[in-house]
């Protein structure tokens, strides 16, 4: 099942598939370069590149705050002044939340970060899904992002233990307010249900027992970092999975990792995220046993996935619906343009159903077909129009005042139209359409699409820049473009 892809079977289309799935696609030259490396080296280069650029300095303006001092200073103010100050702080928070998100999206785009590294970090964000809606403080969200990226290619046990201590998670799933006398079960439940085992592999008693091992996990308000609070320790031994002892939170994670279901749960989820929607159970078991034997090391698991013949099989090729982030990044990277400014971009991602740092619930994003309904599909089509400088519908997210209009013009000017549609091809509509389709789809299309694009190009008197924009818009306004 997991035999590696033979080098002889390595094609440009497969290189494009790898670049799409491991990262966020790229322009033709990038695919060519990856193709020239051969299968195994291509995978290695992508993962080496990711490893080198996983860690990132904090974005500007994101820093810890002494919450104790802040609260004291608030208390010393008159009521009126306090209200003003509070409003001001909230505004700052909203602004830095936007900055943080934009910082991450820019890293994904690839100028400041590495797309493969950022996509993997996005996977872990969707897995340990935490939302700023409840956590509130951008600094905590950044700190969690940092924890995820530092451990993204490391081992899953260390990552999970770090997430259990992560201040944003402590707020998100209420461990911060869990008390020895009344342990809050929220984190313990999601730890087993969503983060490690999946439903059906633990009991309600296991959850209650595990909850008692995390009551000491707290946040130091002065540094906004993790603090172990001994006086909240829940005394006495606990029984988990039929074993009894004075278990710590870390012990609970280790006990979970001993269960083979955990390896299968994570391996399946990574396969679904990167390869295809419905993995064969035998394949999952094979991935899982390798994962477990390696001590839950993530990089070798990814190498196995990306090198496997199954990853390049018809069950995986062109079967995935692009997530909104994938859609936006792919568009920018393949057309070689920048991202729209924060407010428009975040508004669009929100409406499309995937705003980073704001997953809808601790379950993360459902993905797959759940990305698509009539509303989100038409919005994607209108985003495509926006990106090439054509007319769009009114309202959010496209009309954020004159700034949006100005930016759209800027974005449209940025489009390297002579590169996308070389002048020498503009006399031959059919060839031009084929060249452009190759850039956008990177795979052979069905006749209906090929013919429609060629006909559309041929119907124009001249293939000027506006015609090229219109053709790009049409190509992206299709069901085929939503798939990778």
């Amino acid at each position, binding site marked *: 099942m997991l035999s590696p892809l033979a080098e002889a079977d390595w094609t440009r289309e497969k290189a494009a598939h790898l670049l799409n799935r491991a990262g966020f696609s790229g322009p033709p030259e990038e695919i060519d370069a990856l193709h020239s490396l051969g299968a195994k080296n291509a995978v290695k280069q992508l993962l080496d590149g990711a490893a080198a650029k996983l860690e990132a300095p904090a974005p500007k303006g994101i820093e810890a705050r002494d919450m104790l001092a802040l609260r004291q200073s608030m208390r010393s103010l008159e009521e009126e002044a306090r209200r003003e100050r509070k409003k001001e702080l909230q505004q700052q928070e909203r602004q830095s939340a936007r900055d943080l998100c934009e910082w991450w999206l820019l890293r994904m785009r690839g100028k400041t970060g590495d797309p493969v590294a950022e996509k993997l970090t996005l996977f872990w964000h969707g897995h340990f899904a935490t939302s700023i809606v409840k956590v509130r403080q951008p600094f905590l969200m950044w700190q969690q992002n940092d924890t995820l990226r530092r451990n993204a290619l490391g081992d899953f046990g260390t990552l999970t233990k770090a997430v259990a201590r992560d201040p944003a998670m402590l707020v998100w799933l209420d461990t911060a307010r869990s008390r020895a006398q009344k342990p809050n079960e929220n984190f313990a439940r999601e730890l087993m*249900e969503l983060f490690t085992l999946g*439903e059906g592999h633990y009991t309600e008693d296991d959850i209650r027992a595990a909850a008692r091992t995390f009551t000491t996990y707290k946040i130091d308000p002065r540094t906004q970092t993790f603090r172990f609070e001994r006086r909240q320790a829940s005394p006495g031994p606990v029984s988990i999975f039929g074993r009894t002892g004075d278990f710590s939170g870390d012990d609970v994670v280790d006990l979970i990792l001993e269960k083979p279901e955990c390896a299968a749960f994570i391996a399946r989820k990574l396969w679904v995220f990167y390869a295809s929607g419905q993995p064969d159970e035998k394949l999952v078991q094979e991935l899982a046993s390798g994962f477990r034997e390696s001590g839950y090391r993530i990089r070798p698991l990814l190498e196995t996935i990306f090198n496997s013949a199954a990853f390049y099989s018809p069950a995986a090729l062109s079967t995935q*619906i692009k997530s909104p982030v994938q859609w936006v990044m792919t568009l920018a990277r393949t057309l070689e343009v920048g991202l729209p400014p924060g407010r428009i971009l975040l508004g669009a991602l929100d409406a499309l159903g995937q705003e980073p740092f704001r997953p809808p619930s601790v*379950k993360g994003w459902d993905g797959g077909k759940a990305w698509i309904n009539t*509303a989100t599909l038409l919005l994607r089509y209108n985003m495509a129009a926006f990106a090439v400088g054509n007319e769009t519908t009114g309202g959010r997210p496209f009309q954020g005042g004159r700034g949006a209009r100005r930016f759209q013009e800027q974005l449209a000017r940025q489009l390297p139209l002579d590169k996308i549609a070389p002048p020498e091809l503009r006399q031959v509509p059919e060839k031009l359409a084929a060249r452009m389709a190759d850039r956008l789809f990177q795979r052979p299309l069905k006749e209906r699409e090929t013919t429609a694009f060629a006909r559309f190009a041929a119907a124009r008197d001249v293939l000027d820049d506006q015609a090229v924009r219109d053709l790009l818009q*049409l190509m992206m306004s299709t069901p*085929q473009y939503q798939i990778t």
Partner: protein
Amino acid sequence: MDHFEKPTDTLHTRRQFLRTSMLGAAAAWTLPLFLEKTFLAMDAEAADSATQTINGKDGPILVVLQMAGGNDGLNTLVPHGDDAYYRARRRIAIAAADTLKIDGYVGLHPALTGLKGLYDDGHLSIVQGVGYPNPNRSHFRSTEIWQTAADAENLKLTDGWLGRYFDACCQGADPTVGVSIGSARPQAFNSLVPTGVSLANPEQYRWVAEDEADEAFRALNRPSQDPLATGVNAGDSIGAIPGDAPGEMGALDFLERTALDAQLSSDRILQISRKFKSAVSYPKSQLANSLSLVGRMIAGGLATRVYYVNQGGYDTHSGQAPAHQRLMTELSEAVAAFCQDMKGQGNFERVTLLTFSEFGRRVAENGSDGTDHGAAAPLFLAGGGVQPGLFGKYPSLTELNNGDLIHNVDFRSVYFSLLQNWLKAPAEIVLGRRFPILPIV
């Protein structure tokens, strides 16, 4: 309203398509012929007995209102006559004197004045102690159980209960037979054949381009592949790609169907929303906006059986009282305005609104002035066609299951009753088995 009773020149509905193509008159831009064959093959049996004719003029409408997060039923329909309630909730109980009394035992949350008005007028029914066996306390799983109407132990069922109604009764209907407000689609709408549309805002629910592009666009945004030609049998997966679960539609087929539905519905919805304005003034909240839009679509005669709206924020683990007060106010005001709107339109008798939440909260308050995930809770039905009153029994506050109320009414009894007696659908086919009928509609 005459304007909307006949189709526009460029917009044909799927049902019309079926009719015309059966006469051999399929226009080039309508659906390919194979789709018709698929509909017929899939629903050969159901077609005779269950397929419903759906227009926008008469026929029942169901509006489903999801209260996401797990609404605290005990502080919604307050058992003010029970000391056990006040013992369990020393800090967040609602004083008996503050409740809007229904009888000597229960009263509504003080903010639910709109609902109380509907109750007094005989337009609200309250079903008490609704839940299901082996309650699950995870938001996601419990929501899924409510959306799919599955047994708690059945993890396999992913189709929605309304989606199965669409599959059984509404094939060949307009895509707008189900409309959900918001850019996310509820799982309750999941069906074998994608049916129903989602939209957040009618003005943005369209594709903008020049005429020539529009023609190419329409040609590319519809199904391309003949599922019957690939040897897939009725009831099997449609256009499945390797790797898809049996019965599941492939990603591209799914996208193409959705694209067609978007195309067919967008012009009409935009027209309606521009032409019809609400005659009543709705309060300012997202829920009220959603219900106001539903009201305009009903006024415009959209051929819709089920509307779906959402109100979030019910996960009140801490500092519950002010948050819950706000949520109850929003709910009550929005539903009252919507009912007023329906009365003004003369459509009140055609509309039933159902509320639900994935679970109630635990009986005992927690240490943070909030409540944790629980089980059974009451739900509401409002409209001109409901049987007013209290149904079901209030669960005992002292005989608990693990600190939780024990349900007396399975939520699927409510669904069954609505399907059978309101939507006039074969409820047993949709839900897979019989549930006791409640005389709520």
